């Protein structure tokens, strides 16, 4: 395995798990699947549709997201937005993330 592949694999491991927080952060305003995917990719959060769409459904089942079908336009779409429970989880996860960033900053500074 080349070092590029190794780095790509490890970077993917690092990013795994951040998608949930990114979704929760973006869904104060209701959005449908494809639009959210675009927003995430524009914000440099790399995620594939086949990961994101089942994930949204799972978060909805866990009660972190609410959903509603919008039939105003010609194509009916399912819109997701964060639920009150999701807001509480987002606050906790954000704190975790900031702790992690601080810890990593300390650790990586010590290594020359």
């Amino acid at each position, binding site marked *: 395995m080349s070092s590029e592949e190794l780095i790509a694999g490890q970077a993917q491991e690092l990013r795994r798990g951040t998608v949930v927080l990114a979704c929760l952060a973006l869904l104060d305003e209701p959005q*449908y699947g*494809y639009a959210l995917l675009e927003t995430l990719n524009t914000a440099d959060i790399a995620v594939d549709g086949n990961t994101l*769409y089942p994930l949204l*459904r799972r978060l909805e089942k866990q009660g972190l997201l609410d959903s509603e079908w919008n039939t105003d336009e010609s194509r009916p779409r*399912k819109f997701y937005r964060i639920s009150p429970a999701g807001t509480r989880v987002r606050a906790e996860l954000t704190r975790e993330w900031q702790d992690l960033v601080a810890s990593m900053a300390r650790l990586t500074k010590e290594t020359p």
Partner: protein
Amino acid sequence: MTTNTLTERYVREVVRRIPADQRDEVADELRATIADTVDARDGADREAAEHDVILEMGDPIRLAASYADRPLALIGPVFYPTYIRLLRMLLSIVLPIVVVVTVAVDIIENNDVGSAIGTGIGATVTVAAQMFGWLTAVFACIERWQPKGGNAQDPWTPDRLPDVKGTDKQAKGAVSSLVWYGFLIALIVWQHFAQPVILGGNRLEVINPALWSTWVMWTILAGLAALMVIEMIRLAARRWTLSLAIAASVAEGLFAVPLIWVLYEREFFNPEFLAQVTVFDEFYLITAIGVAVIGVVEVVNRFRLLSRGE
């Protein structure tokens, strides 16, 4: 609605693999999402764009598993260690015992080395395949129907580490018990079917054939078979446990009590056999007492070994 487009074929392949109550909604969402993605591509060749989008969505089995939150492995990491441990025990302990017993029965019945070797190879392949297949099927079912988020039923603890040496002081005893019970079963079955005694020009079986039509013989055989299974489990566990010792006592009773009873009632031998051979009256009482004493000694001995941790 159900046109034969690429999207429709793909959506159907995904949703038929997820729970029925979610199918319609996931299907609608997938259709909208695929269409949105296709719209966002350059509109020159819509069919090529649809093809690319579905290619990126990937294997329907994988996507459906992701929607249904289902494992993509036959046996996942939670059950894999237990599966491997059981498989190893079955193939390294139970399989050789079954093969040895089968070969022994074949030798007794046919008295032919070639036939015995053939039977041995056949039994090894068949029984190994059966063990592998059934164990895998059972674990695959457990993997799929375990309660979500539940822990493994059989958590590992440091107590399970095998000792470095002297792991099983009584292994030889257990194996010889196993062979002995297997031999008794084989002997009883063989004398019934092969009718080995030739007296006055007739082939006879020694034990009273009437016992086969009542519960007596079946209880004796069931007791012996249970004792074999318990000895195998004891070999795998490397020592007696309380439940194993109790189970062995029950099995010993299943075997010994009916045997003592038929001996005491003088129903043990085939009447045709007795017409030709004289059996002294004392034989019945002494043998019945002997079986009882050996049974009690065996039971006591198991609890003695249990208390010593062997």
